[in-house]
């Protein structure tokens, strides 16, 4: 059933994102054409098309990221807790599948939006020099991986996982907040926003408590000594281990928000 939910979730959201992506690519191509014609340095009216397209392009990029946030909130709020919830919650599917499908599709659009943004910059700005720099960057990166072997790759992969886990935690934190906000009889979205801030404060308090506990002079001294004694591989290992720990730490919050949302929607559901 998750597959079917995903199918319809993508259908419901792609009609917002695909046109945006299309426009971004068109703008990037236009800007590239104008640059090729050297319009950006033209005098007077001749530079106007370039400037306008550039402004529209920047606005579209900003709009895409704002939309991923709005769609994350609205799909959950409207499709599950609004009138459409009367259908969503009478489908013979588990509540967690509903959450899963919305979470996965939100993450998908976040990643695709990022790829489109980077890709469009490549379209509008790429020339011989940038390609040269790009290929140098990749060869440097390749060298980095061969030199530091497994640990280099590990840190690279961990950075990607950290971004994905961070995004997912952010998404389910929104879901948990909107679900709590739904209990308010008036001002549901305001209550959701307040809850979100509340969750952030709690996270901050827990983090600072844990952090201060570990941050005494003795530990700092010990760590400085430990760090300076490491060779480069050892340093990589340490970075990789701490990245791993921070992913785990973030994931704990994500899992908590996920189960909290699932509990609210399956045990405390009250649609208006």
């Amino acid at each position, binding site marked *: *059933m998750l597959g*079917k939910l995903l*199918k*319809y979730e993508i259908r*419901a959201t792609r*009609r917002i994102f695909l046109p945006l992506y299309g426009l971004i690519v068109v703008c990037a191509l236009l800007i590239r054409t104008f640059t090729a014609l050297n319009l950006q340095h033209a005098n007077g009216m001749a530079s106007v098309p370039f400037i306008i397209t550039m402004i529209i392009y920047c606005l579209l990029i900003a709009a895409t990221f704002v939309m991923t946030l709005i769609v994350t909130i609205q799909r959950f709020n409207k*499709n599950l807790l609004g*009138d*459409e*919830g*009367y*259908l969503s*919650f*009478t*489908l*013979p*599917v*588990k509540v967690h599948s509903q959450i899963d499908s919305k979470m996965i599709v939100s993450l998908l659009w976040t990643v695709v939006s990022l790829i489109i943004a980077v890709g469009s910059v490549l379209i509008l700005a790429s020339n011989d020099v940038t390609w040269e720099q790009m290929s140098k960057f990749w060869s440097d990166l390749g060298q980095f991986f061969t030199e530091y072997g497994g640990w280099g790759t590990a840190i690279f992969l961990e950075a990607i996982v950290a971004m994905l886990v961070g995004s997912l935690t952010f998404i389910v934190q929104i879901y948990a907040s909107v679900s709590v906000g739904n209990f308010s*009889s008036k001002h549901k979205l305001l209550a959701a926003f307040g809850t979100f801030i509340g969750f952030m404060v709690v996270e901050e308090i827990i983090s600072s408590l844990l952090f201060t506990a570990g941050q005494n002079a003795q530990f700092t001294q010990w760590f400085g000594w430990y760090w300076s004694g490491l060779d480069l591989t050892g340093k990589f290992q340490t970075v990789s281990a701490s990245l791993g720990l921070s992913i785990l730490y973030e994931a704990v919050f994500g899992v908590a928000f996920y189960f909290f949302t699932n509990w609210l929607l399956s*045990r*405390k*559901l*009250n*649609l208006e």
Partner: protein
Amino acid sequence: MENSIVECRNLTKVFPGCVALSSVNLSIPKGQIVGLLGPNGSGKSTMIKLINGLLTPTSGEVTIKGMKPGVETKKIVSYLPERTYLNDWMSVQNLIDYFGDFYANFRKEKAYDMLQRLHINPNDRLKTMSKGTKEKVQLILVMSREAELYVLDEPIGGVDPAARDYILDTIISNYTENATLLISTHLITDVEKILDGVIFINKGNIVLTSTVDAIREKENKSVDTLFREVFKC
């Protein structure tokens, strides 16, 4: 009980500042058309939403075929809410595919047949439709399932009187003999002729449960007359 499809045991639902259902005990027999009748705000929709798992009871429980509302009950209950629950960007055809994807007991050919008879174009989007037409589409989708229990909340409220008869015919001709129909409405004269039994509900309490025949024989009244007497303002 063997012969009942819905069972309420001390079912209570309290909203902030009001008791919507107060310790209701009720069993709805299998294979009948039952009217859930009561004035506005009497608890009809609350009861129906509890049956469908859209509300959580404050205390007590409701079971469908012995099961609490969940994935298994949703497979066999076909629910028409009192509001538009369809999104506006899908076409009717998309919605038929959607229902067909999620409900194993959905019959597409039945849906297309009814659409044709009510002159609704399957390619139209909900966005372009009037409120009455949307209601017809929802009813068609709900009645195209071969469910064991149909729960219809105000199924004819927004539809013109001419279409009401057709819709009631549709409801009756599309439900199988073993299925049960629970219809909530205050348009009693329109539905009276199809009902086997009635449940009168007021201020969260069950006031009366009876078969329509018993009302006619014992009281020598129509359901509508009795309703007007019981709920006299």
